């Protein structure tokens, strides 16, 4: 109840609706609200959770910061070692460009999540706040993480580079606003990309298409980085040769001529380092003009785009299937209507994963990388023989081919990366529908078997296929191929069981973004256990290949037996651990 003449009388005059003041006030209100929620989220975590978060952040940030400082120092060393190179004005810009590219990769996903997938959007869109403020505050959602990336990746490199070059204080003073402005352009670009996709994607699937687009964009950037050696001239990229510094300089100068604000800012910073005020002013003014101008333009055009995109998200646009399709579905019972409980659970998962593109996008990374890794592995020197006589001779051959071990490790890693994601999120993917399984008359064993099947079957099919093709292509001995396949299946099955067990122990049902399905504890436990089982189990399996002939028989017994015991122990331990907490899931 608001009493007349008290609160209302002392309240200051609010800014006129639609004015810049109102926009800023509303944006500030929404940002402070979000910061409050972030603080609450951290404060309401358990001490262990807080400790884990802090340790996890430090574990990632410290090595990267050291690496960054090394890059800055190395850049300075390069210029001192090769004084003929005229790269001094370019390197700070390169550092800023690298970090801007990193931010661009993450900005698409962040913009997608904050602009369209936040659960508070409906509340905000009907509230009497400027819609541009909603957009702006959502656009700035990732600003803290962006500044964290900058603080870890760019700041140490710029500082050590400046120290190495003996730059004056103006360099450090101007580096600060430059770094503060760096995320604006990537965030604006990411938001525009998301808004454009939302404009053309089908309304019902727009969230998923956006999620998939974000994953594909990230993958493309990653793939470009992975294959960068292919576009540089061989004189630079070829290993074992001394780099041609002039060719490097020519390429870098060509790159530096691009009108990227980060490169312009870099030249300004270098000028500031030498006390060249005019050069510094030109560089940083150019940077500010492009960055802030683009960001302001983005905010200005965004209102309409954002409104359109948001409206499309709200409409279900559900096209009904034809009567013929309905009749066909009714007549065709399929496996889903006949399966046992575990198989029905797996069938349900196999239908749902590819249908939810956001969920499916989580598998895209390893799915795309697998063929690249696989064909790289197969591309090495080796026999490409399909001679049946030779193959028959191989039946009695017992020595293991080290190249084959490498291929088996590659296949195991690739397939496990894909299917671990399914196993680790087997319970979390149920999300709010978990109650349907919890209330059903199914035993814990049936549930675990069903969830295990959904991850294991794709793994077994894929790994068997890849190993069979690799064995034929490289002409492995049948015994060697069989042993390799056995190792892959044994360790893979165990790793999947461990991922399922830990995913069961620490599920996360309340996710909005599929990336949040994995909890920190589950991810760490899975990573640790699969590393241990993979390395030690793999070591056991490789014993016969690296043991002197006189110990061969012992190695053939101890190796597989040790691996089986370890794999079984790991799988049993993790599943028992997960099962002991299964009934607690969804209790609150």
């Amino acid at each position, binding site marked *: 109840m608001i009493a007349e003449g008290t609160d209302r009388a002392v309240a200051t005059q609010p800014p006129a609706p639609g004015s810049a003041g109102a926009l800023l006030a509303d944006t500030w209100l929404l940002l402070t609200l979000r910061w409050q929620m972030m603080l609450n989220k951290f404060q309401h975590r358990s001490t262990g959770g807080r400790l884990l978060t802090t340790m996890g952040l430090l574990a990632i940030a410290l090595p990267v910061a050291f690496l960054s400082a090394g890059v800055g120092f190395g850049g300075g060393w390069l210029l001192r070692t090769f004084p003929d190179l005229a790269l001094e004005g370019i390197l700070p810009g390169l550092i800023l460009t690298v970090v801007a590219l990193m931010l661009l990769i993450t900005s698409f996903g962040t913009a997608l999540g904050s602009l369209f997938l936040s659960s508070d959007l409906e509340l905000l869109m009907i509230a009497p706040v400027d819609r541009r403020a909603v957009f702006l505050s959502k656009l700035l959602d990732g600003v803290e993480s962006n500044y964290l990336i900058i603080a870890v990746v760019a700041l140490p490199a710029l500082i050590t580079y400046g120290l190495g070059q003996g730059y004056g204080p103006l360099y450090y003073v101007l580096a600060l606003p430059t770094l503060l402005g760096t995320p604006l352009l990537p965030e604006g670009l990411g938001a525009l990309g998301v808004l454009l996709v939302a404009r053309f994607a089908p309304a019902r699937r727009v969230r998923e298409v956006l999620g998939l687009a974000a994953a594909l964009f990230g993958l493309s950037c990653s793939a470009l980085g992975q294959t960068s050696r292919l576009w540089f001239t061989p004189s630079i990229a070829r290993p074992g040769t001394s780099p041609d510094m002039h060719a490097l300089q020519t390429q870098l100068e060509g790159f530096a001529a691009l009108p990227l604000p980060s490169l312009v800012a870099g030249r300004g910073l270098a000028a500031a380092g030498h006390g060249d005020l005019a050069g510094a002013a030109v560089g940083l003014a150019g940077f500010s003009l492009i960055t802030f101008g683009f960001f302001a333009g983005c905010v200005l055009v965004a209102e309409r785009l954002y409104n359109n995109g948001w409206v499309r998200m709200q409409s279900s646009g559900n096209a009904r299937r034809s009567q013929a399709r309905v009749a066909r579905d009714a007549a065709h*019972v399929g496996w889903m209507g006949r399966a046992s409980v575990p198989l029905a659970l797996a069938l349900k998962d196999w239908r749902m994963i590819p249908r939810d593109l956001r969920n499916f996008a989580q598998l895209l990374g390893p799915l795309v990388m697998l063929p690249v890794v696989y064909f790289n592995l197969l591309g090495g020197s080796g026999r490409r023989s399909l001679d049946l006589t030779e193959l028959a001779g191989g039946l009695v051959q017992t020595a293991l081919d080290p190249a084959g071990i490498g291929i088996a490790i590659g296949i195991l890693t690739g397939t496990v990366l894909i299917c671990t994601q399914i196993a680790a999120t087997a319970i979390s993917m149920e999300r709010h529908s978990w*109650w349907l399984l919890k209330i*059903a008359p199914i035993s814990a064993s049936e549930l675990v078997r069903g969830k295990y099947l959904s991850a294991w079957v794709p793994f077994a099919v894929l790994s068997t296929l890849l190993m069979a093709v690799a064995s034929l292509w490289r002409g492995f001995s049948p015994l060697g191929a069989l042993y390799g396949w056995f190792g892959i299946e044994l360790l893979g099955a165990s790793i999947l069981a461990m991922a399922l067990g830990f995913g069961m122990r620490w599920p996360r049902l309340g996710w909005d973004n599929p990336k949040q399905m994995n909890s920190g504890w589950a991810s760490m436990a899975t990573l640790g256990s699969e590393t241990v089982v993979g390395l030690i189990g793999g070591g056991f399996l490789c014993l016969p290949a690296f043991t002197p002939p006189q110990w061969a028989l012992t190695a053939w017994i101890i190796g597989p037996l040790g691996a089986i015991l370890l794999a079984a122990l790991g799988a049993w331990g993790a599943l028992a651990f997960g099962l002991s907490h299964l009934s607690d899931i969804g*209790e609150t």
Partner: protein
Amino acid sequence: MYSNGAGPEGQVASGRPPAIWAEGLRKVYGAHIAVQRVDLVVQPGEILGFLGPNGAGKTTTIKMLTGLIKPTAGRALIGGHDIQRDPVAAKAMLGYVPDTPNLYGKLTGREFLRFMGRLYRVPTAQAEHRAGELLRLFDLTTAASDLIEGYSHGMQQKMALAGALVHDPKVLFLDEPTVGLDPKSARLIKDLLGQLRNLGTAVFLSTHILEIAERMCDRVVIIDKGVIIAAGTMAELRARGGQGSLEDIFLNLTGGAEYAPIAEVLA
């Protein structure tokens, strides 16, 4: 409160166990007592209305009875099977429709019903027949091949009900089943409840729509602040809570009539 002739452990003179039997159910979250103590019995073929203000402990009680959450203390039996000690047998007998459906959005309606049929081990032919009937009954046949995520809230609510009925449960828990339904569908639910009662199915109905509770329920239980404050037939409640409609009785018992005048709040 062992009415209808049921004693401890749910035994009745006929030897047939009650559909629902609960004793001393209690749920505590940290310092917050969600449900202090609930004792109740529901016989086969009986519709029990479970009423209470917001936050009274209705949904928590239903979740304890259905095995969705573990009670801090007390026991619940469904058809004579302990929901905690013998959960598979107990759950096989019950169906549940929550207030928010939360179904698998990426399954089609028919796939969802088939999946539910497998979970409840309904023979394939029977499940197919039953699914077809339920889709027709709830006017969902034309949408059966669409993904559930494209359904309206009311359609999802009806699909949840269809899913709960696929295995012909002996006990049906309904938490606000008419929320989001159009008048035709709401009427259908009411008619369905009558049919289920005739078939011997026990219905545990939590609702805020007192007209439905008054017209449909054989007995009414009112819970407030985690404690059952009244239970009985409408006649018994009138004798205790004063003459008038169920709404009057409810407000008298739960203190709703003491609310500050609306005009004062909005002034």
